[in-house]
């Protein structure tokens, strides 16, 4: 099987081609089967490879396979090649597994959409690109995947492009991502050149790792910083997070797959993949952790004051991504990836649950017009509840293990670790609060539904609820692969990933006190419970309390509700000024000066051509004459040159 790693991304590519080329002519059932099965086959391949990896000794768990030479230039060869190691196989399983469930869910969700085949085409293309991203064995191919998923994200956010808001959101996502990609690309160039001048022209991960010690400290810092800029774009961190909430304009399964479970975690994956570089730049790691934790808190606070359920989830995603960055930032790569995985389960579940609610309420997103849905949507309700408990960090569910792992490792982080821990802890409480605010407002309490909607509230079809149930189970048990030693577990997940982060993982053994670790766990559980309780009091027990609160602190509330006016500030600072510069460049520099010169040259050239064509008189003897002149010149010149 290891010979056929390329099959993993290959299946969705085939699905993409079939649906893309023939989709319009095929019946819907065929489109659905092709779309779902192609991803399912990838999942099966990944699973087979996973077990093959398990059979190998931990140090030998790297399978690399080059498929063909891609770019060859002098000493530099970049191949299209794939690499399977514990890190990438985890990503493959998550991407294809969760991806498959979401594909199945989409069959029900998108059933009546006129762009059905187009939707599956894009979705398959996305999975293809995402798998390329996580299995690539060199930076360049990874960048192809990176840009590819960006493209798919753009296409899917603007899927309903007739809507102005959707196409604008697509553009916003694309442009903001470009800023990050620019950093990423410059980082690749810099890395390539600085290693190249040392004699190593390569972009292959293993070779980079072997030769990373050739880089000077300051260069490494700059390179990793540039890569991190790329990560902030794709993974929606401060300051480039602004596109993700708008990205909710896309179909909800897309939000679940791309903007929660997989694509947005690409930045985390990238940092984990380049761990050998980051470990050489501790300052940058600190920045990563700091940005992560600040983003986590900042986004969580915005989540307090949103009414659009998908937007709440979007801010929650940003916040959780912040946690993952804290994880990789403090050197606990395994913990970061662990949270990435569990987050993929419960966040996909939350989004799909939200989708199910929308499906039932004819597209309603405002939680003020919901309430009491529990009895109409029982399956959606209990799965949603599981997800909320998981994200809040209630013991026994997956989110608890992964989040606590990160917090614990942050606590141990020597540079301002305690500060990061405290912010993270507070954020955990905030998370519990706004998630339960969402849950209570949606499923409990008074029914605030519109009358006409109320008549056809219905539970979603099986094809949608079954993925919900599977994801709910995963949200519960997903954490059991990584129960820490402190709780008597085996920390299998960390051990499995260890070969990838060998030698660079945080040296966590110092004053490893069991009491402290368990104490901190209890503390975070208490914080989460407080969050839930506050939400319970404010939104279920005494709903008027929250209204009073809002009235009392109206200014603060408005600020938060409007996302601290960040969009407006960006608009004022960057967009307007850029537009002004752009207009100047267009009107003055481009149209007047450059076009003037270019057009002038063009007219001049044409004029010259018009004159030259008269040399071509049509008379054969003139042609012969020109040949004789040419011959005399050639002969004469050579004679002068050779015989002095």
């Amino acid at each position, binding site marked *: 099987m290891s010979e056929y790693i390329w099959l993993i991304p290959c299946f969705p590519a085939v699905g993409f081609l079939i649906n893309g080329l023939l989709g319009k002519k095929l019946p819907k059932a065929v489109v659905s089967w092709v779309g779902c099965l192609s991803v399912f086959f990838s999942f099966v391949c990944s699973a087979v490879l996973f077990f093959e990896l398990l059979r190998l000794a931990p140090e030998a768990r790297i399978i690399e396979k080059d498929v*063909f*030479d891609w770019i*060859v230039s002098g000493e530099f060869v970049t191949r299209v090649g794939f690499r399977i190691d514990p890190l990438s196989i985890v990503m493959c399983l998550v991407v294809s597994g969760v991806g498959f469930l979401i594909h199945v869910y989409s069959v029900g969700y998108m059933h009546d959409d006129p762009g059905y085949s187009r939707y599956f085409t894009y979705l398959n293309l996305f999975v293809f690109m995402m798998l390329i991203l996580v299995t690539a064995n060199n930076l360049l191919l990874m960048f192809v995947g990176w840009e590819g998923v960006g493209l798919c994200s753009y296409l899917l956010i603007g899927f309903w492009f007739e809507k102005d808001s959707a196409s604008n959101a697509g553009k916003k996502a694309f442009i903001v991502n470009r800023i990050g990609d620019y950093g990423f690309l410059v980082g690749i160039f810099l890395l390539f050149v600085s290693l190249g001048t040392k004699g190593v022209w390569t972009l292959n991960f293993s070779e980079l790792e072997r030769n990373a010690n050739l880089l000077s400290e300051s260069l490494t810092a700059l390179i990793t910083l540039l890569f991190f800029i790329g990560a902030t774009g794709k993974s929606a961190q401060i300051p480039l997070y602004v596109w993700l909430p708008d990205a909710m304009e896309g179909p909800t399964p897309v939000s679940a797959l791309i903007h929660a479970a997989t694509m947005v975690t690409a930045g985390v994956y990238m940092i984990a993949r380049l761990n050998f570089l980051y470990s050489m730049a501790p300052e940058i790691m600190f920045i990563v952790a700091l940005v992560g934790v600040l983003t986590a808190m900042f986004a969580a606070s915005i989540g307090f004051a949103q009414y659009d359920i998908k937007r709440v989830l979007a801010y929650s995603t940003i916040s959780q991504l912040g946690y993952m960055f804290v994880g990789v930032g403090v050197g606990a790569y395994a913990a970061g990836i662990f949270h990435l995985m569990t987050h993929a389960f419960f966040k996909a579940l939350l989004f799909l649950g939200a989708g199910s609610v929308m499906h039932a309420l004819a597209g309603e997103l405002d939680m003020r017009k919901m309430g009491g849905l529990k009895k109409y949507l029982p399956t959606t309700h209990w799965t949603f509840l599981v997800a909320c408990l998981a994200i809040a960090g209630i013991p026994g569910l997956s989110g608890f293990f992964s989040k606590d792992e990160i917090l614990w490792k942050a606590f141990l982080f020597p540079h301002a670790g305690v500060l990061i821990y405290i912010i993270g802890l507070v954020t955990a409480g905030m998370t519990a609060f706004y998630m339960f605010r969402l849950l209570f407002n949606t499923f409990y309490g008074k029914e605030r539904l519109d009358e006409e909607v109320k008549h056809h509230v219905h539970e979603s079809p099986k094809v949608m609820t079954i993925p919900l149930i599977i994801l709910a189970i995963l949200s519960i048990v997903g954490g059991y692969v990584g129960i820490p030693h402190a709780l008597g577990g085996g920390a299998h997940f960390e051990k499995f990933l260890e070969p990838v982060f060998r030698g660079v993982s945080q040296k966590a053994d110092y004053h490893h006190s069991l009491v402290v670790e368990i104490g901190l766990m209890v503390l975070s559980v208490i914080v989460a419970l407080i969050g839930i309780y506050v939400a319970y009091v404010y939104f279920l027990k005494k709903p008027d309390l929250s209204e009073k609160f809002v009235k009392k602190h109206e200014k603060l509330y408005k600020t938060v509700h409007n996302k601290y006016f960040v969009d407006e500030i960006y608009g004022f600072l960057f967009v307007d000024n850029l537009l002004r510069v752009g207009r100047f460049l267009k009107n003055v520099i481009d149209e007047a000066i450059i076009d003037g010169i270019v057009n002038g040259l*063009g007219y001049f*050239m*044409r004029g*010259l*051509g*018009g004159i*030259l*064509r008269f*040399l*071509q008189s*049509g008379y*054969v003897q*003139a*042609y*012969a004459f*020109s*040949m004789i*002149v*040419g*011959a005399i*010149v*050639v*002969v004469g*010149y*050579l*004679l002068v*040159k*050779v*015989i002095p």
Partner: protein
Amino acid sequence: MDVKFPVDELILIAPEIILCGFGLLLLLIEVFLKTKSKSFLGILTLVSAGSALVFVLKLSSFSTDLFFGLYSLDSLGSLTKGLILVMLILVVIMSLRYVEREEVISGEYYPLLLFSTLGMMIMVSSKNLLTIFVGLELMSLSIYILVGLFRDNLKAAEASLKYFLLGAFASAFLVYGIALLYGSTGSLDIKGYLEVIAKGDTSTVLIIGVALIAVGFAFKIALVPFHMWTPDVYEGAPTSITAFMAAGVKSAAFVTFLRVFYTAFLPLIKQWGDILWLLAVITMSYANLTALVQQNIKRMLAYSSIAHAGYILVAFVTGEKILSSSIIYYLVAYTFMNVGAFSCVILMGRKGEENLDIDSYAGLSARHPFVAFCLTIFLLSLTGVPPLAGFMAKFYVFSTAIKAGYVWLAIIGVLNSVVAAYYYLRVIMYMYFRDPVKEIGRIDLSPSYILVSLICIFFLIYTGILPRELMLLAEGAVSVFF
């Protein structure tokens, strides 16, 4: 002297024998055929070209001198022969329909194509100037006739006359050059010259001889100022023959030019390098500027082919043996894009109404999206847009120039490509963004044209994205210079 004819070497020239035999056979068969069934001859031509190609491939691993050094078999020759045969096959495929459409009554069309191809093959696989001369003349004489094959067409007749007179004129230069070389060295074998020159024996007569040979080849590959026949002949000739000339004659002549100069006269590179440098610049600039104002697409492509010869010359003047593989790569890519472009030009016409004016192409994308698409690919490749082979070809050629220190030449080349982009893209602009100006009637979308276009497109995209294999082949071919 007891010399035995080396009979066992005959098998090694099987491709040539096949072409010759089939050419004669076709002439015979033609007499007994009714005029309607000309396509039978075409099929036979395809068969012969195909089997010759098979033999060329089989023999491609051989590298030896035959017939007392008059003929040779080597990788450069084999690759070029393969290219020429593929080109012949493409031209014959499109001719199947074209000949029928234009109601060519003379049956010599296919035999002459075969003989001309035979001439090219002889020309590219010899190190002896006598054989090269014979091959060149066989190629040229056949084409003089092919150009004037539409006997009632004034333009074709005039093109034929011009090509004939100027071609013979250029041959005279070539022969005189050979005579002078022979006079000063006593050899007709190009390796013999190398020995003489290596000794530092460069008499005036030898230099004049070299210069005159260069003139003879410059005519065939249409370098300014020896190019003036090109636009007229390309315009007047039947379009399939134009494709044949643009791709085949140019490739064969270039390879022979390359072989002669890189084998024998490299020690004199300092001298002829400069003059060819100048020729390259004049050729590119003149051709591109004149192409800007052409309204006839065949004429425009003719000037474009002159310009491409200039680009190839850029790599030629460097005198770097290793880097000359870029020339071979360029020729291969150039062959496919030109044959493809001309097949689209043929497609646009009907009997008596060729629709060569660029106005005819206005709004083509709406009426015939497939044709517009194909032509767009070919024009983009000619422009040198990635990921098409034309881009890689230009890239290799210009990087050759830069590696050899001719940075200015590369810059001039790139600037010229920019100028060239104008007239290529203009056609695309007409096809996609203009409303139709005139009625061009129904287009004959015969499978033969479509097949040719698709083959060419496939090849251009394939070698554009994965240039490695072709580049390795080209490197193998130029290894004969070491």
